[in-house]
């Protein structure tokens, strides 16, 4: 019996996981979200900015982490547009260009924000660190035109934004090591405030930078997105997702416990 339980086909576990996701999704369950401090710090920072400030959002994620970071991007954009904070979008990842463009144009359409006045999407330039550093000298030395090919000199909101001196916050939405790159190269050299929203995999490793003040705040994966949705009071995909997430977490918790109990019984018998 015990041996059988221990050696069940992994495909049975796969089916359990699928059920734990599909049923709550269909039932559309919602739980309230408790907001954590690092997410609240990002929210507060943006909330306290004077109107017409400019922030820079880096969409440094690819399709593989779209699920976690797109809802986060949408929530922050909604907040900025409602507070009249202007947003410059860009990305260090080639796949990020289309994704950033998509979320920016969708959210701005919803919120009635105007391209070129309330936001601009610059797209992608290869070069990573050199792109980051080049923008410190002059943004137009790296991005001569926006994603749609319009020269920066013709974009109203870019007239008084030349480099990091005119940007209140850099928010990096990242699925890889880019937050520490932004920290190392602009927080240090240009004293630029940096915040990050990252995938679950990376959350833990960025905590030292919050305590040292190198990160203003940190949004942890889909949970961070749901927290932000709670803060701006518009529960959307992330809040729904986190509720479904709860069931899978419970399932995995049960699996770990059952696996370990079986393991200990087996070990005791062996002794």
């Amino acid at each position, binding site marked *: 019996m015990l041996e059988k339980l221990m050696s069940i086909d992994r495909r049975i576990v796969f089916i359990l996981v699928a059920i734990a996701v599909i049923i709550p999704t269909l039932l559309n369950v919602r739980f309230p979200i408790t907001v954590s401090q690092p997410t609240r710090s990002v929210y507060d920072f943006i909330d306290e900015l004077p109107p017409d400030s400019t922030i820079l959002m880096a969409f440094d994620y690819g399709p593989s982490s779209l699920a976690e970071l797109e809802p986060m991007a949408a929530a922050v954009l909604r907040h900025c547009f409602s507070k009249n904070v202007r947003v410059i979008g860009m990305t260090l990842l080639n796949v990020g260009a289309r994704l950033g463009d998509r979320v920016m144009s969708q959210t701005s359409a919803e919120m009635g924000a105007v391209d070129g006045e309330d936001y601009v999407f610059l797209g992608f330039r290869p070069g990573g660190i050199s792109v980051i550093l080049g923008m410190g000298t002059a943004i137009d030395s790296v991005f001569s035109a926006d994603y749609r090919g319009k020269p920066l000199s013709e974009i109203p909101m870019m007239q008084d934004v030349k480099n990091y001196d005119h940007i209140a916050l850099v928010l990096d939405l990242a699925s890889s090591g880019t937050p520490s790159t932004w920290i190392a190269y602009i927080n240090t050299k240009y004293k630029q405030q940096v915040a990050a929203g990252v995938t679950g*995999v990376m959350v833990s490793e960025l905590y030292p930078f919050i305590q040292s003040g190198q990160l203003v705040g940190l949004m942890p994966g889909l949970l961070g997105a749901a927290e932000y949705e709670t803060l701006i009071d518009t529960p959307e995909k992330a809040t729904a997702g986190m509720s479904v997430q709860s069931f899978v977490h419970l399932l995995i918790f049960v699996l770990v416990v059952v696996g370990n109990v079986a393991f200990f019984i087996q070990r005791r018998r062996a002794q």
Partner: protein
Amino acid sequence: MISKKLILFLFLLAVVFGPSCTIAIAQEAPADVDTRWFHTGKIWIFLSVVLFSCAIIFSIYRARGGGDIFIRRIAGLEAVDEAIGRSTEMGRPILYILGLGQVGDVATIASMNILGQVARKTADYETPLRVPCNDPIVLNVVREMVKAAYLDEGRPDAYSEDDIFFVTESQFAYAAAVDGMMVREKPAAVFLQGTFYAESLILAETGNSVGAIQIAGSDSDSQLPFFITACDYTLIGEELYAASAYLSREPMLLGSLKGQDYGKFLIFAGIVLGVILELVGITWVSTFFKEV
């Protein structure tokens, strides 16, 4: 024919003068610009860089000059013999997985060094050593290394090139293929050393389920939790580099390891001293490290 030296000279000239000419012409400094040649606030960072560079270079030269450099015992490495011994007793193969890294990655190089040492031992015991590769270039390098190891041990006859083979360069297909191998061949020992991504978990879980002794090592932070839970021994981060230095005795690796230890010692001292002084209200050390 123009001499090579002349080309070289012109090339370097262009490289050096290209940027400088542009700047000389482009520069017209406004009045409020900082015209210091050296940012005095950064002097401590500069001096630390110089000091640390000296420590590294000095240690490497000392190691090259045959100076003895001590490296501590690393728990996972002692299990290597145990794993090989067990495979030999049970007459089952050893599976060595180098991860998805490229040949230039530090972790892959470290892993290849360790593989070389494992190969020396399997050559003696005639235990089959199976190495499924994911990168065609890594494959070639590994074949050379293992062949050399068998030759060194005087057992070129025991080396079989077919045991070191290319599977596929795609992540999940590689994981699936290696999974299949584990289930069919039931290796007694599995080594997972190198750069790993999401497939780490699939490999470690299957290795665990076939009852192999698993020794893992990686500098991929986010994959370490999976190795620690599913493997018997895990080399964590820098331990992997240390292990390869320990086994290969390569002076450059030993030397930089030692130099980095000097650096760690200074940080350690800085923290301890800083905390003590902070507590009595003296802020020298924290001012030293503060933002400039």
